[in-house]
């Protein structure tokens, strides 16, 4: 950029001030300076250009990749379209939503499974991650190694996860049936095929990933807690449990909010594990899997798929709005 605008400004002068003098040489600059509009005109054309790019480009990318697709999806959810010719788009009112709610059998099981997923993550996976973090935060030997082990699932690729859990859950040769002593017998549990148990099998696999993620966040949170708080608590005679639940845990409030939001969002976008098991059918229906089923590939029904996507969007907005209110509400109070 040009020299004047980029020169580090003195603490008490705005970066724009230097530029203004240059611009002020113009015919009208001096006369307007004290006016009400002067504040706006402190920016030179060059600054405005730079600003336009710096603000405009991200906005444009956001617009192109986030807002337009979202708005198109919402618009398409009220139409029927075969995806071929734009002329073929026909208005359908709320037919697609009626179809999803009334006629599409996998929809309500998918809703239930998403809720079950949320409850399971919130009551089992997240506390497990917290427990791991607290344990690893003690000065035990090999803490780093354990951390790496528990975090590994978060980094593994989808295909690998599929293979790993297949080794556990396979009906005839899986480890689990072998340990239960039922492998190869008719009593062997079909962990992926039996629609009564496969959602639980999938949630255990999801926990395996989610707990590692939560553990990492809480480890960072625990490191950030001021040690003097613990000291004060122990001087006041609190035992370890009291110290943790009454002092340390509330002190991690920012992390807690992040974890709550992550847990909710993870349960809403839960997709990969059920998709590699059986593409989200036969007891593993999830809304995200239904969206993919209806929008991608040969089974494409754009109207219905968009309606499902909009439903998922609306549900997802609730925790996001909650999070934003908490975050910005706190900032404005500060």
């Amino acid at each position, binding site marked *: *950029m*040009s*020299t004047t605008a980029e020169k580090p400004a003195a603490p008490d002068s705005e970066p724009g001030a230097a530029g203004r003098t*240059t611009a002020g*040489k*113009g*015919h009208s600059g001096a006369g307007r300076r004290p006016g009400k509009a002067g504040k706006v005109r402190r920016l*030179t*054309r*060059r600054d*405005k*250009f730079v600003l*336009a*790019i710096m603000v*405009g*480009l991200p906005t*444009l*990318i956001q617009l*192109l*990749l986030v807002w337009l697709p979202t708005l198109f999806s919402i618009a398409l959810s009220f139409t*029927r*379209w*075969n*995806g*071929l*010719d734009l002329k073929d788009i026909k208005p359908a009112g709320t*037919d697609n939503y009626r*179809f999803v709610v*009334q*006629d*599409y*059998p*996998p929809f309500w099981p998918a809703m239930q499974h998403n809720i079950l997923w949320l409850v399971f993550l919130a009551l089992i996976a997240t506390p497990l991650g917290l427990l791991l973090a607290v344990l690893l935060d003690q000065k035990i030997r090999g803490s780093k190694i354990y951390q790496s082990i528990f975090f590994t699932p978060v980094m593994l690729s989808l295909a690998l996860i599929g293979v790993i859990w297949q080794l556990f859950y396979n*009906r005839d040769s899986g480890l689990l049936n072998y340990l239960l002593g039922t492998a190869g017998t008719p009593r062997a549990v*079909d*962990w*992926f*095929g*039996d*629609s009564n148990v496969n959602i639980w099998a999938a949630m255990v696999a999801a926990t395996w990933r989610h707990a590692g993620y939560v553990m990492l966040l809480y480890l960072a949170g625990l490191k950030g807690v001021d040690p003097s708080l613990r000291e004060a608590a122990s001087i006041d005679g609190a035992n370890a449990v009291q110290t943790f639940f009454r002092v340390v845990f509330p002190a991690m409030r920012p992390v807690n909010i992040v974890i709550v939001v992550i847990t909710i969002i993870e349960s809403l976008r839960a997709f990969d594990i059920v998709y590699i098991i*059986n*593409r989200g*059918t*036969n007891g593993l*229906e999830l809304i995200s899997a239904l969206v993919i*089923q*209806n929008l*991608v*590939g*040969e*089974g*494409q*029904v*754009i*109207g*219905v798929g968009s309606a499902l996507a909009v439903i998922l969007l609306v549900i997802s907005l609730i925790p996001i709005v909650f999070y934003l209110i908490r975050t910005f509400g706190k900032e404005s109070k500060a």
Partner: protein
Amino acid sequence: MAANLDPFQSAHNAGPGRRTILKTLGIGAAGLAGIPLLAACTGGSGPAPGASSNSLTFGSGSSDDVPKNAYKAVTDAFTKKTGVTVATNVVPHNDFQNKINSYLQGSPDDAFTWFAGYRMQYYAGKGLLAPVDDVWATIGSNFSDAMKKASTGPDGKMYLVPNYNYPWGFFYRKSFWAEKGYAVPKTFDELKTLATKMKSDGIIPIGFADKDGWPAMGTFDYINMRLNGYQFHIDLTAHKESWDQKKVSDVFDTWKALLPFQDPNALGQTWQDAAKALEAKKTGMYLLGSFVTQQFTDPAVLADIDFFPFPEIAVEGTDAVEAPIDGLLLSKKGGDNKAAHDFLAFMGSAEGQNAYAAVDTSNIATVKGADTSKFSPLNKKCADTIANAKYISQFLDRDALPAMANNVMIPALQSFIKDGTVDVKNLEAQAKTLYAAQ
């Protein structure tokens, strides 16, 4: 950037209007930067070589090694014979199928691989394909009536040139059946009697796998065609017939009698697992396409495999065979290219199909007079079954709207396998919405 800005800065006369222009310019530049992103979204392939009469482009979804090499053998033979060069674009088959909509509307190749059935008829009806009646005028005598019927579009014109197909039937191990004294059942009642006997012998009578959702459609199709006839299958899958009628519930009721004999672990296994169970003599027979033999890598086992057609139930005996046909189509653009027509004619000749079958031996050439000297007895039987068939169906997911097959029938059949119930009213309600969206 500073250098670029200087000229603007020296424009002292710049009023607010000029600033607005500058701002607009900035946003415009950013907008230009976004255009490649948009273009990338459409996923169209690059411009194809010009359609002159001594070259053509060929889009192939046959991306696995064997069929890929087989099509290469065909194009090489065609080039050698006519001097026409063929530029082949091979696309992974799932991508090819999933992107067919944008492919046909963008810049498709002249000729491309596709299937018979509703999926061909649909694009023909939308005017995205070029008819090849001129080709059929020369190759027509090479094909059976059933093949011709399967290659015809909704307007009565010819669109497809078949390459190969594979029949669906009950596969079993000859030695195992001889040892146990089982005989091939001719009727549905005989099938049930045989299955009862097998069950009492402690084996699972009918191998079955439906984790992937589609294999169960084979059972549905066959019972439907044996009960209600081939034409009903076609009308039902094209949604000219309602799903909410007694004929459809009868199919499920008939199937229900067979359910106790089918592998109870179907929902947890893939067809490959079920093929292994057949090989290991855990199951007595297995209803699948002849591609099941790909799983039998031991030549001794492969030689021990035989099959019989789905037994007759009520109408048409065993006239209808489920034998999905793969072949070639011309895109609208390819219709203007004489060389592309010649290429399809070559594919419809014994010479072209022999070149293919010499590399890919797991399928059955569709042309009369194809080289059968390398056929195994099983291949020969497959070929005879197809040749003698009065009607050839294409499998539910090719005869029906894909959304109907994948989004509606897969969950419906899986839940039927689970508890033996199905809600035909709901099937019809879903069919109505989905077919209306096309």
